[in-house]
């Protein structure tokens, strides 16, 4: 009976004791308790770090984030120029946008108070609306373990370095299916890569197709604007991967390997034809002549053939492929692979004239008269000279000639010690080929290792194969023995001097540091130049040159409207994908010229 429950009355009385206590109230707004270090408040975006990839907008299930252009931020390669704008009338502060941000520029702050009578105020440009938010960043993705993105690339199976040097077998083995799926899943599909790609391939699309298991679709998308995907899949310089959003803080998506994976699904030309099955327009009666069966020429040939043109390609050598055939070692791009692609082109209707050198076997004039348009894709056939004493000695090679000879199947005796001068991809190729020929190889490069223009992957592979890289050495003299054979290479050590104009540091020889390297062969891989001797004099005022390159307009057209040009002979990048891009540009130019603007629009 609670009437006698004395405890029931007295115990509650103790509550009155609280009156004497100091209240634990936080007297906001007069006194503030800072939010926790992880508090998920308003957004902040480090505008300079942001690359506008739009992943935040994509992950947001509330569609709270818009990508909008911002004044003062110019789009460039690897930066879409757009920046996220948050609609705080949608946001739920889950922080997924932060966790998915590949650069880590987006974060949440400890600020959270935002009160306004006007609902329109709640559109908010993080980083621009709150430039002071940088010090208040709280929820960040600086620990990659907690980022939703996978930053590690799927490991590419390769031959063991010890095995590699024994033969010209292909080093890279290609992804297995599950590997490719996993790697393709990593892609965030932002499309920044497409801008860096000279050819603007549809990269996110074909990678997504792989991720979804639609390999055929993937190949079809790839063939949409690249007729040599397998070549690119193996040897592309992949500037796309440099700007990959994931590359900011991790390893980029292996775009090249994925393309390679997709192309390898088709085992031969028939299968490619079956899968890609491009619509071939009926013949339109126009004819186009192409000089040089390099990537640029092949591109022109393929896409014009698809559009109903009669295309004939003139090639000096016995095989198509140009530099990809003769300049790239077979352990990177096997012969069969190239043959498969050329075979497919023939099936589509491209005609080849091999062993037909323009200017010798057939004159340029004849071609010019015969065809409605001419495309010059001759590339760079001559090598730059070292310009040092004794370079005409026996055993001094230029890299492209060396590689060409090797690729033609010749087994060249390089002796037991080879010095390769240069730091580009060609130098690496020459070094690795020399290794395969059984020599000890030293690469001599003027600058530091981080300045080398070659791919870091290639450098690593070369080193794994036992190529020694000597840096900051400038060759000064080739020392020959009595028979005129190379005995040694003399070089000076160089120190790096910062360029006062802000360019990259220049190597300056150190007085008296001459050293000799004993060697049996010296290979110079320092650059190439073109040979335009086939072009008669009368065209020279129409086909203008600038430092060895043909000048063309935005359609790949020279001043003679009938003559188009592309490839290494035109661009200074000198890689396969740029050549393809030039070719594709010229295709459009030729279509425009011969069929008119209208035809350009209907694909």
């Amino acid at each position, binding site marked *: 009976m609670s009437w006698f429950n004395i405890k029931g009355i007295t115990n509650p009385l103790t509550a009155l004791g609280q009156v004497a206590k100091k*209240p*634990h*109230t*936080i*007297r*906001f*707004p007069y006194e*503030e*308790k800072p939010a926790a270090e992880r508090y998920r408040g*308003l957004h902040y975006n480090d505008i300079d770090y942001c690359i506008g990839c739009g992943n935040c907008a994509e992950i947001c*299930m*509330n*569609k*709270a984030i818009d990508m909008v252009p911002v004044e003062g931020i110019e789009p460039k390669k690897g930066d879409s120029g757009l920046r996220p704008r948050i*609609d*705080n*009338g*949608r*946001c*739920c*502060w889950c922080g997924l946008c932060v966790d998915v941000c590949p650069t880590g520029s987006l974060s949440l702050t400890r600020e*959270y*108070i*935002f*009160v*306004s*009578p*006007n*609902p329109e105020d*709640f559109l908010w440009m993080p980083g621009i609306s709150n430039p002071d938010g940088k010090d208040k960043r709280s929820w960040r993705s600086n620990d990659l373990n907690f980022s939703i993105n996978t930053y590690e690339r799927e490991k590419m199976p390769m031959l063991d370095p010890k095995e590699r040097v024994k033969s010209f077998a292909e080093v890279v083995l290609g992804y297995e299916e599950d590997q490719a799926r996993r790697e393709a899943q990593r892609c965030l599909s932002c499309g920044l890569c497409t801008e860096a790609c000279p050819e603007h391939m549809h990269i996110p699309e074909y990678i997504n197709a792989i991720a979804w298991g639609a390999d055929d679709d993937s190949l079809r998308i790839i063939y949409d604007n690249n007729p040599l995907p397998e070549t690119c899949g193996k040897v592309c310089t992949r500037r796309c991967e440099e700007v990959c959003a994931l590359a900011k803080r991790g390893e980029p998506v292996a775009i090249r390997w994925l393309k390679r994976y997709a192309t390898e699904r088709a085992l031969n030309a028939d299968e490619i034809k079956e899968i890609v099955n491009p619509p071939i327009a009926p013949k339109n009666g126009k004819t186009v002549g192409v000089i040089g069966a390099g990537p640029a020429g092949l591109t022109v040939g393929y896409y014009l053939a698809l559009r109903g043109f009669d295309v004939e390609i003139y090639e000096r050598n016995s095989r198509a492929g140009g530099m990809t055939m003769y300049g790239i070692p077979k352990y990177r791009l096997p012969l069969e692979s190239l043959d498969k692609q050329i075979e497919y082109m023939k099936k589509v209707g491209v005609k080849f004239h091999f062993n037909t050198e323009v200017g010798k076997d057939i004159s340029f004039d004849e071609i010019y008269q015969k065809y409605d348009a001419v495309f010059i894709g001759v590339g760079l056939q001559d090598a730059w000279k070292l310009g040092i004493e004794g370079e005409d000695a026996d055993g001094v090679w230029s890299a492209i000639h060396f590689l060409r000879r090797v690729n033609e199947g010749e087994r060249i005796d390089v002796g037991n010690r080879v010095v390769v001068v240069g730091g580009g991809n060609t130098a690496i190729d020459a070094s690795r080929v020399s290794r395969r020929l059984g020599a000890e190889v030293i690469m001599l490069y003027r600058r530091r290792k981080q300045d080398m223009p070659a791919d870091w992957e290639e450098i690593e592979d070369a080193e794994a194969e036992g190529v020694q890289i000597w840096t900051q050495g400038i060759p000064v003299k080739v020392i020959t023995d009595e028979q005129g054979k190379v005995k040694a290479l003399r070089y000076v050590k160089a120190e790096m001097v910062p360029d006062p104009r802000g360019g990259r540091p220049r190597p300056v020889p150190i007085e008296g540091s001459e050293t000799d390297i004993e060697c049996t062969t010296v290979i110079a891989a320092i650059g190439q130049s073109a040979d335009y001797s086939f072009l008669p004099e009368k065209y020279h005022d129409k086909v203008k040159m600038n430092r060895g390159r043909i000048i063309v307009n935005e359609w790949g057209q020279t001043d003679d409207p009938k003559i188009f040009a592309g490839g290494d002979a035109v661009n200074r990048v000198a890689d396969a994908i740029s050549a393809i891009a030039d070719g594709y540009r010229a295709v459009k130019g030729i279509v425009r010229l011969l069929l008119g603007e209208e035809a350009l629009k209907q694909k």
Partner: protein
Amino acid sequence: MNRAFNDRESQKILDIIKNFARKNSLFILAYGTGCGAIEIPPTITSRYDAERFGIRGAATPRQADVLLITGYLSVKTLKRVIRAYEQMQDPKYVMGFGSCTINGGMYWDSYNTIKQLDKYIPVDVYINGCMPRPEAVIAGFVKLQQLIQQGKALGWKHYKENLEWYRQNQQKVIKNWRMPDYNW
């Protein structure tokens, strides 16, 4: 003497007094319309103690001054909210909590919640957050107090003047409109 106490002047002084009382005595209607209601108890209890500002709960719309729309409003609740709002006595204020009242928030694609609160009832202050934490709620109240002091929290007048427009919007989503007239 007459001049000093002309109507306008005395009205002004009266307004200042009135607004001072109004801003310092905000009774909130105890209606938890959505998620944000869970942060109301912390706001009005000991740790944040909104009663310092004269904010306290009122049990019925007749006694309340502020209607808190604490987040999303389902269409079914909207009907009740409109009734509650219209029962409240002028001047009355509405605070929209969080994203959902501004532009749909998390439930932007839900078939059962409204997306823009100010299409259906006038809103005086929006508070950012999903849900706004007690500090933010208090900041919202402080802002509301400022607006009242300046005589700018006039949503209730706007509502009366544009009743037609509001009715139209309300009736668009509330399909079965069985409601008493305004101020019943």
